[in-house]
């Protein structure tokens, strides 16, 4: 498989958030603002890249019977590493994302890539696949986060200080919070937003096919 094929599949054709619909739980729960989306997106991408690379490096040494156990152990270790690093260097973001950092372990997209791709391809391709699949997931998180943040709070990129430090930042205030659509911030808003995104993707695909 060529690098550009990998990129096209990871970011668009087989996007984990829009097509495979893997990892929906964190995707729907954390996508209420851009900053949260970026935070979880980066964490997931880091884990996915590291786990794909490692799985690809060890694929010859592990018997098929125990591979899943080994994959899960690798993924869980990297998630814990990312969690410890976040609690040391991005403490505020770590507090906001809370349980969804350890829950990256249960994101099926990660085990899915280890099993379906990394265990059959060389380390370089696997690393690229992990990185781009993670980015594909992160992009959905960010777009959905922006959509919900704008509609719900009337802001964009609020609380940016959680990632870059500095004083609390209100972000771009587009309109007052009072006019915000509460629904967008609540769980149903996440489902509706994701549904609209998937519809938009399918619409674009149909247009380009015909």
């Amino acid at each position, binding site marked *: 498989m060529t690098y550009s094929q990998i990129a096209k599949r990871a970011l668009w054709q087989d996007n984990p958030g829009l097509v495979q619909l893997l990892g929906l739980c964190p995707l729907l729960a954390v996508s209420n603002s851009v900053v949260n989306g970026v935070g979880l997106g980066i964490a997931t991408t880091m884990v996915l890249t590291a786990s794909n690379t490692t799985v690809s490096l*060890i694929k010859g*040494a*592990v*018997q098929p*019977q*125990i591979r899943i*156990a*080994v994959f899960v*152990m*690798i993924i*869980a*270790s990297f998630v*814990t*590493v990312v969690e*410890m*690093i976040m*609690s*040391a*260097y991005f*403490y505020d973001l770590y*507090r906001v994302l809370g349980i969804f950092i350890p829950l990256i372990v249960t994101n099926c997209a990660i085990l899915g890539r280890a099993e379906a791709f990394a265990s059959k391809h060389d380390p370089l391709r696997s690393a690229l696949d992990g990185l781009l699949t993670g980015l594909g997931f992160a992009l959905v998180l960010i777009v959905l986060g922006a959509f919900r943040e704008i509609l*719900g709070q009337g802001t964009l990129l609020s609380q940016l200080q959680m990632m870059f430090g500095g004083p609390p930042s209100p972000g771009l205030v587009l309109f007052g*919070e009072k006019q*915000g659509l*509460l629904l967008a*911030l*609540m769980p149903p808003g996440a489902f509706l937003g994701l549904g609209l995104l998937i519809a938009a993707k399918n619409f674009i695909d149909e247009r380009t096919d015909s």
Partner: protein
Amino acid sequence: MKVINGTLVLTVFAALAATLLAFVHDKTEERTAFNERAYLLRSLNLVLSPETYDNDLSSDIVHISDLDYLGSTEPVTVYRARRNGQPVAAIISSVAPDGYGGPIRLIVGVNYDGTLSGVRAVTHRETPGLGDKIETARSDWILDFTGRSLESSSREEWAIRQDGGVFDQFTGASITPRSVIKAVHNTLIYFAAHRAEIFERPQSDHETP
């Protein structure tokens, strides 16, 4: 042979994973502990200005259980502020057990004379846009507690306007403010009855019992 091989491979990977985790833990432990303390102190200083005390507030703690007045079956943490060894104020992490979305965890700063030095909601699951006005990021409502005491308002006045009290209500959410007001009022009653005892008790360990 196959079984032994599998066991061996798993063992090696478990050992490698454990080594990696131990290494990262060792590198980040100190910074994480520092962050946690800084975060705790930052929230405590929101309800009690740091100029008023000179002791190590985040470790001068006692754990107290009182389901009726402090709202939790678990012991709650009380941080004791002193200046030159004399009691100045206590910060009580009491709980409003009957919030709309479950318990609302508060920190209630009470000066030794029984006036409130500040109240903040620490964690809650109130409805976004309605009940979450107890957060300072959403509205100034909770700042209205500062300076009040059992003497400043009668028992009936510790309520939202709708119920004949002195506190503003929220449109569309009356359970949340009622629950917070009741919890703060109960905390004040508890403090008034036990304040000498709170400051005399020996310091608890840092860990929750």
